[in-house]
């Protein structure tokens, strides 16, 4: 595992070799919070493993331009070039997918939430396994607290998103349903 991680870190490092800092040095602060193996263990900090690169690129772009306001992320990306944005997103997309939450599961709640996933068509855009694709993020195995936070922000229009797709979807989703949806997605492999 350790060896594999080092290998992953080295490949982009060569591509960005002209900079004084190596890529490994530049990406280390990201991994400190978001987790070295794609899995975050920090509250409300998302796991990034296996996130589709186009989605990550959009988020980094929004952070750089302060269109999405998370101070630590705005600060981290403020001097990124367009090439940096792409290098970091490609790297993040190659991190291993996060492990789903492995605490005891409430089967009834999972059934109820599975119906919601279908009713609100989460599975149309995010794929039936919630692995995401292109500009649409992976939800499977994501931290439950982060999912709740994100969904509530979309519903209250405090996280505008890149386009307004999620605000549209959330218009009809209640807070109780948000909790069920997050519970379900966090437990998908």
């Amino acid at each position, binding site marked *: 595992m350790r060896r594999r991680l080092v290998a992953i870190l080295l490949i982009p490092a060569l591509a960005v070799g002209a900079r004084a800092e190596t890529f490994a040095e530049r990406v280390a602060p990201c991994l400190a919070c978001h987790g070295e193996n794609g899995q975050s*263990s*920090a*509250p409300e900090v998302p796991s990034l493993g296996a996130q589709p690169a186009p989605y990550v690129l*959009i988020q980094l772009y929004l952070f750089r331009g302060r269109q999405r306001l998370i101070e630590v992320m705005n600060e981290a990306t403020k001097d990124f070039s367009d090439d940096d*944005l792409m290098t970091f997103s490609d790297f993040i997309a190659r991190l291993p997918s996060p492990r789903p939450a492995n605490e005891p599961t409430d089967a009834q709640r999972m059934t109820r939430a599975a119906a919601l996933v279908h009713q609100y068509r989460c599975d149309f855009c995010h794929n039936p396994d919630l692995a995401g694709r292109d500009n649409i993020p992976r939800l499977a195995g994501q931290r439950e607290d982060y999912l709740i936070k994100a969904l509530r922000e979309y519903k209250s229009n405090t996280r505008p998103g890149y386009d*307004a797709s999620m605000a549209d979807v959330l218009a009809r989703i209640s807070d*109780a349903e948000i909790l069920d949806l997050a519970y379900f997605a966090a437990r998908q492999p």
Partner: protein
Amino acid sequence: MRKILCISGFSAAAAVVMASAVTGAAFAQQSPAAPAAPAAPAPSAAAAQPLPPGSPLLGRPDTEAAKKLAPVAPPPVPTAADKLPLDKLKAKAGFKVELYAAGVPNARSLKLGPKGTVFVSSRLQDKIHAIVEKDGKREIKVVASGLHRPNGIVVHKGTLYIAELSQISKIENIEDNLDNPPKPTVILADLPKDEAHGWKYLTVGPDEKLYFHIGAPCNICMPPERHSKIYRVGLDGKDLEVYASGVRHIVGMDWHPTLHQLYFSENARDWLSEDMPQDKLNRVTKPGADNFGYPYCHQGNLPDPEFGWGHSCSEFTKPLTLLGAHAAALGMKFYTGKAFGSEYRNAIFLARHGSWNKSTKLGGDVVVIKLNSDGTVKSMAPFLTGFIQNNNYVGRPVDVLPMPDGSLLVSDDFNGAIYRVSKGSSRVAGNK
């Protein structure tokens, strides 16, 4: 140790945030909102039940193909000029298409200043760009930034008006201050903040008032009182009044050059079916009184399966013509130039952004709509095509702008580019 070293590269404030986040790792993967024994009332037990009769979710497609339908987001970084799909774009015979400007991120609405500056809005980015020609070269400048969904722009008597998600602002004498423009001054604030269909199109009427709309904050719902309406307001932001109602979402409006009536494209609801309802071309003939049917009636003749009960489509103003299901009819302008020939005089050029809620993509073109003398529609035909290749977008047209020389500009928000269509034969073989 390494983590601490890395954090030192950040600002102090950021480091505190990060440090607290890292030390919080002990609480990893708790389920904060899901107690072990769920004490909260089972709120959505009904959701697992079969849908009630009339639910708009009935008949939702379950095939694998349909499950791949999702809104298409453009890349945030504009496409390099040499990677643009110019060889794919086909103008109608007798016309040619060329690049006008590349590197205009998320290029949306196009408007012309009296001194010849082309202003370009954005929906997903925070900036308004201006394109000026100087010594035969085009220069792209940022004239406003830090805006939220600044999709609507119009230039009137030298003043640039900008419609953001929830406010309208202005910059006076914009073309005299392109290199150092002042910050926009807000003239109308406190519009709704809903993100869904919150971006606006902006135009100025013959009465020298600003016209804009507040879209439905959803795909299909009973809109709140202020939503789903076209408004007009004085150039000073005063005397706001409703101009038309029953409108789901508009991203294109213009004024008939001789009848002086407001024409607009309207986007119909999603998820009802592959082929219905269609987007509409509408015209306001009874200011203040026209109701175009949303959410009760779609495309002039299709009652909504949920909200249509108790209503008849005959209650509402009919569309002039239909523009295709899910085709996303956006920017439209009347062509009053002479260069294209008399058959195009006072015709409408309209950009169809292209569908997402449809298995086989539709739109992704600019159509020309010719009118009868009473303003009704005579014909509609493709004018610029090729944005869809193998059921994928290589670009997406948003707005059109007839130029003083008679050519037509077309914005593409997918590539962050603007094309120019003019009379002549194309350099691309087989494009006749």
